[in-house]
């Protein structure tokens, strides 16, 4: 599997449940990637902004890292494993 470090803006179908953000699926390079499960969550501060990061495993068993930036708000795909450009 190949590893890519990215900073691609992506459209993410998102659920807000009990004050938590949950990415459900996103569109990247013309494909829809469905989130099978969130495998990790963490935050990072950039100045006064709190960025929310999610490691996710897709239904196709690929692995990604998504970042939710509330300044947009927008989502950035920051890492991908397994998917070919």
């Amino acid at each position, binding site marked *: *599997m190949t*590893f890519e*470090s*990215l*900073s691609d*803006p992506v459209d993410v179908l998102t659920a807000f449940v009990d004050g938590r953000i949950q990415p459900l699926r996103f569109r990247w390079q013309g494909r829809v990637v469905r989130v099978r499960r969130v*495998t*990790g969550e*963490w*935050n*990072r501060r*950039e*100045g*006064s*902004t709190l*960025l929310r*990061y999610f*490691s996710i*495993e897709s239904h196709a*068993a690929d*692995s990604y*890292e998504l*970042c939710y*930036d509330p300044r947009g708000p927008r989502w*950035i795909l*920051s890492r991908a*494993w*397994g998917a070919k450009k």
Partner: protein
Amino acid sequence: MSRAPVNRRILLVDMDAFFASVEQAHHPHLKGQPVIVCGDPSRRGVVTAASYEARPSGVHAGMPLQEARRLCPNAHYVEGDPEKYVAISLALLNLYLSITPDVEPFSVDEAFLSLQGRHGTRAAALAIAADLKQRIRERFGLTASIGIGPNKLIAKMGAGLAKPDGLTDLDEQAFREVFWPLEAQSMWGVGPQLATRLHALGIATVSDLAHAPREALEAAFGIIGPQLREAAWGKDDTPLVPYHQGIEAKSMGHEVTLPEDCEEPAFLEGTLLRLSDQVGRRLRGEGYVGRTVAVKLRDHRFVTRIRQRVLPEFTADHRMIFDTVRALWREHWSGGPLRLLGVTVSSLAKVSGAGQTELFTPDTRAGRLREAMDRVRDKLGEASLVPAGTLTHRRRLGHVPFGPVSGRGRLRNPEP
């Protein structure tokens, strides 16, 4: 009337191959595979962490990436994300604090916990440690090795006995049974150099150290000689410094392995400026000033030189740090290719309360500019404003592992 002995047990929680395990937990296809965490895998650098699956190949932290690739060509080379590891370390710390307020973070992947009263019995401590391991596994998908003992020394050394995913409980007697037959170097704090000096005195094992004449140890090693002897008996009265009391920093520094050996003065100077800027910013952010400035130069043959200078006054100003570093570098650089550069400020003093602002920002143009720059970076992030002298350097470097440019730079809006 004698008081009843106070029940007290110390736990050392040591996360197993922390950085590599986080990547395996977050990316399930890496589970059971050799994983090597490093800087940008497409550039050279050193191994930051190796998973347990990679270790039988001989790969270890600090090894040049080139050598790791030779030893373990089939490993997954993953670019590390230090801010992620720190964030998870803080989440772990919060978990520990839900068990006891007496938690001392020892490193990004280790922490001491003190259990007292009814929780400080052996049975209670064992049950708490087992439960903690379970909670770490469920919440983070990670394993930890925990050592339990009557003091920090035994807890720390016990945790290393059964890794990964171990749980070891020792009292002083059990400590001696386990460690006395082992090499003196197995003692916490005894490195290869000290072990060689001990050997010269005829001290090969921990038992030898425990039975060595106190006077001989003091004559050879000064004050630490008798302390080493006590440690070999499992004695340690080092206090646990709880997180909420804070820990005073002794030095602050940053270093970077260059993408290729470099002998271009402008590039090297730009790198030193960036490192000085990072150190100054961190000093100011954490409320410190320092007086000793050091530069670290490692050449292409891995020969490392550290040169330092004591300043006439304390500072947290990156210009003053950089001017000193540049002078040291010009004085001691032979002109040959360099592999690594580092900047450290030590002899630190905490600045608190009244006068802090004045110390950091004397009422000069430079001081006011620095204060304004700090405010902008506090609001917009580190990459929002950088010294112009570092720009050429940044474009060429592209990526600096564990520096503030890498992750933050990627997240900036790509649109103009």
